[in-house]
């Protein structure tokens, strides 16, 4: 056997051993086990094929080795996420309501979410940010992965960020990118024609061409690097804006607070060209609020607090060259993405009006939120008949943001401590935060309980 075939087989063996060990654990929901079994079948298929391949290496065999190793590389992080989803550090109460949300959101216009094949893995990773798979890897095309940072895995106030991650699935499944391709590629072409002298390579390709359509054809046919990279960046930025709008559509104000909690004063590290600036995203969410309020009524989307002061465009030490580049070239590209956001918002209005299941998802309002906050959370008890997850989360964020909310609570009020003692005050705030998290998670379980008991008994 060729050495590389033997090594590939050994690596497949090792990966399968690790996967089998993960499969041995008790999973909190069936989707997790099914995901691992699907991955197992892919890796095992490669192993069988390689074992039966000719003894001498040929091109087909070496290609199969590459494919097998590529599928270990692509699927291994997913095995890690799935294996970790069983950890009791997670808030398992979130699973049922989030899966219902995902099914409602990803159903087609005439599809009943109850018949949906969408499966969900909710887990965490040793990563700073929330993660999802942007392109659903084979054989897991029905699976949605929402991966929270490990240290925030049980923080229910961050659930609205799952709305953003679900947005990536909506983007992909509804082919939004293809629908916007003509718009953004035309604008990128216009921008590059205008700034062609800054790019010698581009200038050479375009020659004397002046019209947008022939220039675009030329750039596409020549597979121009600057053009394709600019298009890729605009597309990614549009996708991020779109996901923010979906998150806001689903969760209303609580999305904005989770966003602010997670990103202010700015995202640390090297600024990514594929993400719009945080301040730009914040501004666009505010515009989405205006548009959605106009479409579905201001009783759903509350007036938003001005949170721009929470953010600063910090110059990252050591990244000055990148920032300078950004100002030269990418600001223009940022502008292209921003110019298309109105159309993106209209896209969401269109998708929502075509789907009955989406209408049910945005069933949240001030009145319910006030009832939950004032008649239940005020006494540190979960509420009945909350109807939707966003009603709970919007009320929870009201409590989180109001330091004086429990000031006269018999056990959480200031009267229970020596308020001149800073350590005691700090401990009281921690106690309140922990109480709020427990309360919200219990409330989400009550929501699921009510959903289950409303359904007829099936045998």
């Amino acid at each position: 056997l060729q050495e590389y075939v033997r090594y590939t087989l050994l690596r497949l063996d090792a990966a399968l051993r690790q996967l089998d060990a993960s499969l041995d654990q008790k999973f909190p929901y069936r989707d997790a086990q099914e995901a691992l079994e699907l991955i197992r079948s892919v890796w095992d298929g490669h192993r069988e094929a390689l074992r039966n391949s000719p003894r001498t290496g040929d091109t087909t065999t070496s290609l199969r080795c590459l494919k097998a190793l590529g599928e270990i590389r692509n699927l291994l992080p997913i095995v890690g996420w799935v294996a970790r989803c069983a950890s009791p550090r997670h808030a398992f109460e979130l699973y049922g309501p989030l899966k219902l949300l995902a099914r409602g959101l990803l159903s087609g216009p005439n599809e009943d979410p109850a018949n949906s094949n969408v499966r969900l893995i909710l887990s965490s990773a040793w990563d700073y940010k929330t993660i999802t798979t942007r392109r659903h890897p084979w054989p897991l095309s029905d699976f949605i992965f929402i991966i929270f940072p490990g240290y925030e895995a049980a923080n229910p106030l961050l659930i609205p960020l799952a709305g953003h991650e679900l947005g990536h699935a909506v983007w992909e499944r509804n082919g939004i990118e293809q629908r916007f391709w003509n718009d953004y590629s035309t604008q990128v072409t216009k921008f590059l024609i205008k700034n062609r002298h800054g790019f010698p390579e581009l200038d050479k390709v375009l020659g004397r061409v002046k019209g947008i359509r022939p220039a675009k054809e030329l750039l596409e046919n020549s597979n121009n690097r600057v053009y394709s990279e600019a298009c890729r960046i605009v597309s990614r930025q549009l996708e991020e804006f779109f996901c923010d709008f979906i998150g806001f559509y689903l969760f209303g104000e609580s999305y904005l607070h989770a966003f602010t909690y997670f990103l202010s004063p700015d995202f640390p590290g090297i600024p990514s060209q594929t993400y719009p600036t945080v301040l730009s995203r914040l501004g666009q969410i505010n515009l989405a609020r205006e548009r959605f309020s106009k479409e579905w009524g201001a009783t759903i989307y509350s007036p938003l607090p001005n949170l721009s002061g929470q953010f600063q465009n910090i110059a990252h030490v050591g990244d000055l060259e990148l920032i300078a580049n950004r100002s030269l070239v990418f600001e223009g590209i940022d502008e292209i993405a921003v110019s298309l956001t109105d159309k993106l918002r209209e896209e969401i209005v269109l998708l929502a009006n075509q789907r009955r299941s989406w209408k049910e998802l945005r069933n949240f309002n001030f009145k319910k939120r006030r009832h939950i906050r004032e008649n239940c959370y005020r006494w540190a008890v979960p509420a009945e008949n909350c109807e939707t997850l966003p009603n709970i989360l919007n009320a929870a964020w009201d409590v989180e943001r109001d330091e004086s909310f429990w000031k006269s609570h018999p056990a959480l009020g200031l009267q229970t401590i020596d308020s001149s003692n800073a350590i005691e005050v700090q401990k009281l705030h921690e106690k309140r935060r922990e109480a709020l998290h427990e309360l919200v998670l219990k409330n989400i379980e009550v929501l699921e309980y009510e959903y289950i008991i409303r359904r007829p008994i099936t045998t």
Partner: protein
Amino acid sequence: MIKRGKIAARLNGKTKAFQKDPFFIIPRPVSLQKERAAAEINNGSASVDLRLGTWFLAMRPTAISLLEPGEPSGASRRLKRCTEELNLDVTIFNAIKNHINDKRPEMSPQSRAIRRALEDLKLNVTIYNELKDTFLASDSDNRLANLYHIRFGEDFILHPRSFVLGVTLEWMRFPSDLGGYVIGRSSWGRRGLIIATATGVHPGFTGCLTLELANLGDIPIAIRPGMTIGQIFIHPVDSRPGDKSVDQSSFACKRAPRLGHPEPDEIAIKLATASF
């Protein structure tokens, strides 16, 4: 004690005094829902059913030296006989043996799988381990116990003579003029299931009640979140509604069971350190 009809009236009470210091049981038991309130006025029962919640906390097995390295011990022989009698594959025997030799069985997925397999076979094999360190009651929850979440529709098997902490599905808030006592249901008690040993609920308590579940019988009991597992008797406390003097230690605000720490008081410390 208060009869069920009166409890329902109190839960649904709209009077100002009640609203200043409300009584909550969420989710509200079916017998206490507004629509049933009128019918329950004449109900003679004085208790409210409680359902089992979804979180469990099980103690890790303590450290007992059982096997000598390299030597087939009594436990190993017993296991061998057991696997032979059950006609189990030799790999299963080896897996169980490895499980015994595993220093921290609860930490490894393979060991958990073995334990589950044993549960599936209804073999209540208690395997103790030789550990370099042992657990002490003063250790943290993370070190002493494993937390489990069982979704609605799934079972948790409580083996004979095993003990686990559970919670009620109901989250309660007791006003300052009410207290309660939790007891089991006789139908479960007759099968050996005991649900609580520390049964008093103080005025001002808020959160899910912790249940101390023990199977004193000889057969495994499958318990399932959402099933009615106990009942609470509610009684008045000599206090006015709205009285804010609440026992702080009774405020738990927890949805899952925790071990907590039995703290010795001043007298216990003095007695423990006394010397003459």
